[in-house]
């Protein structure tokens, strides 16, 4: 990696000041950033270590009024939280399946949300859009792990954070601090589709960091389900997260988000419509899963992800009401 200036401030104010310099990046668990630096994908002039900024870490509040998770909260702390396990199972499940115990002990919530895409062309230094001689390397090359939605554009990587989709299904907001002060946005608005190589997939302005995530009061039933290759440490191929508002046994409304299928956390509007007003049965879950695939336009090597969309949506829906038929 390239040599860089390093600092470890202990207050948010100092951290923001240090981050306002050119080419400065925030370091927390380091499970993504350090690898990018070693591979020369990211070569910052200044690294600002945030672990000593104590107010950034920790979980507060309760499920009745809503939880606040500091951006510096380690994933292992989320997994250890009884409140999250009981009241926000979509988040708990998605977090518990990230990486390995070693990674969850280091990685933080903020770092997970702001990690950069795992697209192998991006990681090989070809940029987010990976265009070469006017052609998309992803479209022409090996795209088995790439997007199946929004593929008409050139941003064909998939948003890497499974937590972002779970948090979006739960209706979470993120608080961002920066040189211009603090702002709070819906978590899905943290992500954007880059139109050119100079755009970022993250809607952060220069010098801004995520400071916390707010989960609304727990309402309804949530779950996430991920399809992956390995049991041990692996990425989800596709993950679905759902949060159902129930009226008796009828689903009055649902929020359904996918990871692993689009350059942003993918909102399954068709599936949300298909489930509204229905009683959740195996048959209905199957139909809603099918609906979730509408609009999928796979690339040359990733059509296999389409049935995974159907399966993960179906299973997340059923898991939310305690039906884990695939484990029978």
């Amino acid at each position, binding site marked *: *990696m390239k*040599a860089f200036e390093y600092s470890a401030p202990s207050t948010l104010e100092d951290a923001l000041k240090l981050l306002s310099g050119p080419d400065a990046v925030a370091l927390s668990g380091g499970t993504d950033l350090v690898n990018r630096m070693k591979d020369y994908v990211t070569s910052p002039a200044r690294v600002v270590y945030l672990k000593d900024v104590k107010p950034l870490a920790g979980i507060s509040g309760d499920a009745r009024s809503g939880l606040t998770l500091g951006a510096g909260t380690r994933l292992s702390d989320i997994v250890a939280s009884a409140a999250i396990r009981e009241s926000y199972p979509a988040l708990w499940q998605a977090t518990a399946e990230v990486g*390995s115990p070693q990674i969850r002990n280091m990685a933080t919530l903020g770092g997970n949300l702001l990690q950069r895409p*795992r697209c*192998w*062309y991006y990681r*090989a230094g*070809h940029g987010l859009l990976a265009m*070469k001689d006017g052609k998309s*390397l992803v479209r*022409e*090359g*090996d795209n*088995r*792990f790439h997007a199946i939605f929004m593929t008409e554009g050139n941003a064909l990587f998939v948003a890497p954070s499974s937590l972002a989709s779970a948090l979006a299904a739960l209706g979470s907001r993120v608080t961002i601090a920066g040189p211009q002060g603090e702002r709070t946005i819906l978590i899905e608005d943290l992500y954007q589709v880059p139109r050119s190589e100079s755009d970022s997939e993250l809607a952060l302005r220069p010098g801004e960091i995520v400071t916390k995530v707010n989960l609304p009061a727990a309402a309804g039933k949530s779950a996430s389900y991920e*399809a*992956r*290759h*390995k*049991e*041990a*440490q*692996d990425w989800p*191929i596709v993950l679905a997260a759902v949060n159902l508002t129930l009226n008796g046994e009828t689903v009055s409304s649902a929020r359904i988000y996918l990871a692993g299928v689009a350059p942003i956390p993918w909102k399954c509007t068709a599936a949300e419509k298909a489930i509204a007003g229905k009683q959740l049965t195996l048959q209905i879950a199957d139909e809603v899963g099918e609906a979730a695939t509408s609009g999928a336009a796979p690339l040359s090597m990733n*059509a*296999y992800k389409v*049935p*995974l969309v*159907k*399966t993960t949506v*179906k*299973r997340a829906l059923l898991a939310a009401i305690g039906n884990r*038929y*695939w484990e*029978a």
Partner: protein
Amino acid sequence: MASWPRNPRLIGTRIPRLDGMAKATGKAKYPSDILPAKMLFGAILASPHAHAKIQSIDVKAAESIPGVKAVYVQAKAGSTLRFQGDFIAAAAATSEELARDAVRAIKIEYEILPHVVTEEQAMAPGAPAIVRGGNVRPGRAVIRGIPDSKLAEIEKIVTALPRNQQETRRKQEVEKVFDELFARSDAVVEATYSVPVITHVCLEPHGLTARWDGPDKLTVWASTQAVQVVANELAGEFEIPSANVTVLTDYMGGGFGSKFGADVWGVVAARLARQANAPVRLFLDRSLEHLAAGNRPSATGKVKIGASKDGRVTGLLAETHGTGGTGGAGFPFPYVYDIPVSSRSHSDVFVNGGAQRAMRAPGHPQACAIMEAALDDLADKLGMDPLELRLKNLDPNDFHTPIYKGEIAMAAELIGWREKRKPRGMNGTGPIRHGMGMAMHQWGGGGTQDKKVSCTISPDGTVELKSATQDIGTGARTIMAIIAAEILGLKPTDIVSNIGNSTFPPGQPSGGSTTTPSMSPPTYDAATRARDALFKHLAKVLNVKPEQLSVKDGSVLVEGQASLFWKDACRKLGTASIAETGGFQEGLASVGVGDCQFAEVRVDTETGKVKLLKLVAIQDSGLILDKLTWESQVYGGVIGGINYGLFEERIMDPITGVMLNADMEQYRLAGAADIPEIIVRAYEPDEQKARGVIGVGEPPTISTAAAIGNAVANALGVRVPHWPMSPRNVLMALSAAKKEGRA
């Protein structure tokens, strides 16, 4: 003829490896852990391109970085680079970071040449030829079982034609023979199966640390499977006496066939050390491990196989190809079974990828996957239990056939084949299907006859064995100690087993499952000679005949009565140690093993995920010296096979020509949670023990992936023809079957 003790105390029991604790606690220092005083760190510059010519190279900027002590350029202007990872240059500096900065500062202008990195690209019409003679090197068909008269008839027709038409016509004529044969068969399967290129992924990377101890005296700590090969290569490269090169490998973190030589980086490390006048450590990084340190070639088999109603195979027609990058990709085929009529033609396909190297049973896992898949599909077509089909096609004239039959019976019993296995299509209609499969393999595992071991008994009672072999994780050090302890009436922990030093008596390179069968006889011989020499000396002192002496439980016995403790007996040597060298002894080792493995799986048809439930491996390997290290070998082989079966795949990018998963994140390997229950059993009735020692490192990795593939086909009722059994390959096979109305 020598023979092993009939009623051994130690041999065949479960003895923990002598260095197990040191390895588990980190006390054991591997070659890459050795940091001699004043050592410099090396870094490598390798080709970022799949195919390019170096136009110019400028190291000035690199050399001028403070802390950079030496830069060595291997590839000159005009050199052609044939794969991403091809060695260009290296630098040595006071820190690893500076060394990396140095190689990045080397300025190179490349002329990019067209590349082919996949077999599809290499074989496409009009593909740029990356080697002289073309990317595809077809071999002539190997034909067995067609009568000579018929072959002569074909040759007569063929030779009458112009030369350029002969090969095509020959092929057509041979196919005609098979058409007739298959027309008479009751069932015929025609299918294409393939396994991808995988890499060795040694946890300790390739490399060495070199230190010059004088102008013509070199010491290196190398992660190698062959200390003496490395020593001889370095001696040759620097034109110094090989006795002046000491290669040390006390421990090593995995080689699997890829670490037999000094390699270009090893030679360059010594050059940098000479240039900088300081020791230099040069080991590959993870990415170069994948790119440049060897791989197991891919294999694709287009197979047509027929059988009669009773399950006897009638014939096999196969066209196979594979790529070993810039190296060949051969494998034995047909495999294991007695196939009465067969024709097999094979093509090596060359691509811009790192050259293949031997990898744990070279060629066999590929052969096994293709052969066993075809046989399994044939059994399904015949409506026959695939186990029965296999029994019917073992070679009645092969000495190993009764052994196979015994092993199959054991494995079937252990996995519950008769009770639990159902034919394809009968494993449920829900999303989760259950399946069972089996596969068989063969291997040599014999030793060489020219290796030596010295055994020294010192007056203080120390027993030291020495040989220039090395322990690549198989337990070689422990095995040698067990043998000496057995003969000297001591405990294995009483023996100092000194190996991993090239200056010791000639020892076996650790490859081909040959280490134990090569090293056991000379160890036995050396210990026996040393014991006899001790007896001869003691006989004089005690005024008895040497024949009256024996050893047991740490004592020397006279006429069966304990007389002296071992240490007291050795003290009687005075000041002179006993030093004996042992060599090959007929009758202690043998060759030729087989095995069968059975797999039980659960396949989720909605996610394509294969969950292994159980694997059973029954292996024969003659006399087993240490049950514990033997089982470790089989477990390790099976786990390697699980990776091959479920996870591993080198992914090359056709556009940029680079490997897309040259890491341990996108190159998938099983974690603990992916490992099922593995049942390992030795097949060792008395007649097996009587065969003597046979190596076991390679065979148990051969048939695992094949058995898993067959279990998946059994579960789904659909063949997944391409390994690994990944969600993608499983879902694609299911989707294709659905489209064709097969599922």
